[in-house]
């Protein structure tokens, strides 16, 4: 049984299914994460203390510096990484990092995707179709 589908303007990577971790907040691997423990570590982040490993992160916008372009690849090499990233607004660094790491990411929605997906919902992210999308299962 499938729930609502939300279409994105751009996507890359493979189709994945995982529980969503949702917040109206930004994302930067350097600023926000303890990449060794696999948790959000910046105290001001709305997901501070939460594990992101194996989750589909549904967040507002890419933030911060350029390090994420390397860090996604490094995180993937250790298997301590999210299942996918779903963002309202992406910056080039996220696209560059996802391209290097062969990581699943989609971005750009008609609605605020952080309000459309419930935290903890099981979702499928599909960047492989003509229209990249996130589907609530």
């Amino acid at each position, binding site marked *: 049984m499938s729930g609502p589908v939300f279409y994105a303007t751009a996507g890359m990577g493979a189709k994945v299914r995982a529980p969503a971790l949702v917040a109206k907040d930004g994302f930067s691997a350097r600023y926000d994460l303890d990449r060794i423990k696999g948790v959000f570590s910046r105290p001001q982040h709305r997901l501070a203390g939460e594990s992101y490993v194996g989750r589909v992160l549904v967040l507002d916008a890419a933030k*911060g*510096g*350029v390090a994420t*372009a*390397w860090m996604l690849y490094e995180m*993937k090499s250790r298997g301590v990484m999210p299942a996918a990233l779903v963002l309202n607004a992406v910056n080039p660094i996220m696209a560059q990092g996802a*391209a290097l790491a062969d990581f699943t990411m989609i971005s750009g929605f008609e609605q605020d995707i952080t309000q459309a997906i419930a935290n903890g919902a099981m979702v499928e992210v599909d960047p492989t179709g003509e229209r990249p999308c996130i589907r609530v299962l």
Partner: protein
Amino acid sequence: MRAGAFGPAVQWAIDHQIRVGRYLGAEDFVAVTQAHIMADTESLGVAGVDWLEGWARLPEKQRRVRVPTITDPRGTDFAAARRLKHQPWMLALERRAIAAFEALGVLMTDTCINYQTIMPPVRGEHVAYGDTGVVIYSNSVCGARSNFEGGPSALSAGLTGRTPRYGYHLDERRRATLLVQVGATPRDLNDWGALGGIVGRLAGDYWQVPAVVGLERVPGSDEMKHFGAAAASYGSVALFHMVGITPEAQRLEDVIPVGDIRTHDVGEADIRAFQTAYAKEIDTVDLVVFSAPQLSLVEMRQVADLLDGRRATIPLLAITSPQVKPDADRMGLTRRIEAAGGTVLAGMCFYQSYAREMAEANGWKRLATNSAKLTNIIGGYGYRPALMSMEACVAAACAGGRIA
């Protein structure tokens, strides 16, 4: 290039650029004259260094960059690694990364202030720069054209001599999308950083271009540096205009589109509130850090002047570029800072140098800085930052860490 005629490194690079360009709507490429790579080993990790070494082992003709390609700060200052308690494995990884970059023909400048020290880009010059502070300064103050190019993409640009034409390479993306009316012209560098942080938060994402009006004077290079670095850090902003000041915004109508534009007012109280939000529960710090961006020669002298006749009794780190450091040595600034108990470091940046491990090894938890950018980043590494003026930071360092 796509067919592999120039070897596998260039083939990978052009393929990577095509994937990124397609994602971001590029229709073609634009030739670039310089590339700047952010690639500290805390970001690269072992996997990233292994990946670089794979390209470095190629025959020389297949692995060399074709436009001048320089580097952002490294993950340590080898001369001071023991004092920072950097571990041997960190230094070994750094040495491997450096050797790989050198084999690729990259110039190891190790700086995030190349626009002050190496070769500032000129108006209209298309470049592929890493480090958000470098990009925003080059776009906004110099009028150059770059997107945020993370390490893999900046290396790609070095190898191919081009980059996908999207974002800030395009005229239409360089128009303002919000107007910020400033009611109080900042005084100290931390105030400029705070204003940049506020503007960055208001902007909200990479595709927003703030136009600032109301400043009562032209900011200097270090003030622009702190403003831009903070705007980029807090908002992922890559371009701002200051009307009547920056080159593309001599008049408001040069950058403001016809029709409505969202407008925000920022005053003295906002700038103060931004800073006190960080320091309100901290009365003592464990160290003082001047970094992010690296210090100019002028900032180095300001630190030296403030320390004259005093003694820092907690660690005080003044971090500059390998280009500024010899001048600071020659002019006695390094000696003056270190005679007063400070430590001068070069070629690294605090948050790019295993900040979490340094905190654990040195017992550092609470940090004072005049860098809004560092304040934004360092919380994720477990520090509690206080954003204060350079003068107040030095005073705290000389009072056992107590904040006045």
